[in-house]
């Protein structure tokens, strides 16, 4: 399985953010997108996720499931947590497990993997920023998707949370997964760097 982009150009609000960008990542490999604020890291992730139009060039996944598109085989972990404050932790997770489909695994197991097993029935409104992030990470575990698109995934996580997430990312890569992450902080796993924007 290989994710690749050829001659990708990003235009936001009539302004070129980046152009002629080539990248490539194979199964078991992590790609860290590095660049200054406003260099288009999030835009690139959203283009891969099919949430933003690609102005020029192409992004494709080879060797995935033939009848599914790239966004359908990807998890997107963005700045916003996609959590409903009125629902409990387990209800939030169970919804995404049922909605996203695929091969679901046990929600409670995913919650204990991210260290939230003590807060199963707590409404998501009472979670701290770090706990919300952990719950979003549990979503990646509860439904298996080969491609993980992560936008500043370690934001708000404490030191223990960061090493926990590094271990989970390592497991995902070992299982033949693929990670593209936009980040300023080190991810804690071996990753190929992709620099975008003007080199400073």
């Amino acid at each position, binding site marked *: 399985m290989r994710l690749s982009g050829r001659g990708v150009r990003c235009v936001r609000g009539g302004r070129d953010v980046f152009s002629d960008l080539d990248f490539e990542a194979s199964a078991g490999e992590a790609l860290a997108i590095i660049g200054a604020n406003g260099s288009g890291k999030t835009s690139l992730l959203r283009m891969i*996720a099919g*949430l933003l139009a690609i102005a020029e060039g192409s992004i494709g996944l080879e060797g995935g499931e033939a009848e599914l598109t790239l966004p359908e085989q990807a998890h997107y972990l963005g700045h*916003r947590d996609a959590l409903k404050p009125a629902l409990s932790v387990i209800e939030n997770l*169970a919804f995404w497990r*049922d*909605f996203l489909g695929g091969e679901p695994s046990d929600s409670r197991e995913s919650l204990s993997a991210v260290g939230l097993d003590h807060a199963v029935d707590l409404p998501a409104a009472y979670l701290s920023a770090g706990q919300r992030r952990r719950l979003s990470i549990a979503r990646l575990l509860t439904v298996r998707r080969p491609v993980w698109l992560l936008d500043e995934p370690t934001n708000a996580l404490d030191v223990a949370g960061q090493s926990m997430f590094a271990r989970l990312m390592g497991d995902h890569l070992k299982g033949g997964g693929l990670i593209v992450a936009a980040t300023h902080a080190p991810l804690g796993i071996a990753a190929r760097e992709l620099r975008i924007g003007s080199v400073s």
Partner: protein
Amino acid sequence: MTALAALIRRDIKIALRVGGGALIGVLFFLTVVVLMPFAVGPDLALLTRLGPAILWLGALLASLLTLDRLFTADHDDGSLDLIVMGRTPLELACAAKALAHWLAAGLPLVIATPVLGLLLNLDALSTSAVALTLLAGTPALTFTGMIGAALAVTLHRGGLLLAVLVLPLSIPVLIFGVAASQAAISGLSFGAPFSILCALSLISFVIGPFAAAASLRHGLD
């Protein structure tokens, strides 16, 4: 199917919990109808004649009031991104969301109608005629309103814009809803306007989800 059932269950659950907004529509409907006799005065014959129109107007405004939450809540917390990326066709997801919205916010309006009919001096037959036309017509308001909600999703405070956008689409529903109720009350042919009302609902079931999905895809940013 599991995905759609999960989406409907979740939306209804959120709407019914504290701050969910399912009750806002009914309370607004109640306020409009309760105030009307005070504004019109104690002329019972006039109230009876205006009754169906007042109930329909109240229901229309109440459904516009709650519709702007249909997609903005999901857009603001990032859920909409995941729904768009998901394996469920966006058209079906939109239809499921509209159905959930109607069950949580539209159906209570129909249920409240018999009680509010009393305040407008409507007899049992007239009240049930209005309730029946609302049952057939409010889904059309939800499904056409969904198009406006999808267009206004990226705008903050798009609620008023939504009302203006879907106004031309809700006018036919209002006309035939009130016409069918009046026909039933005055003993004229009920069938023709009621059939057209049902047809408007069926058309909106087909067009609404596709138009909403198209504008959501286009509006993504």
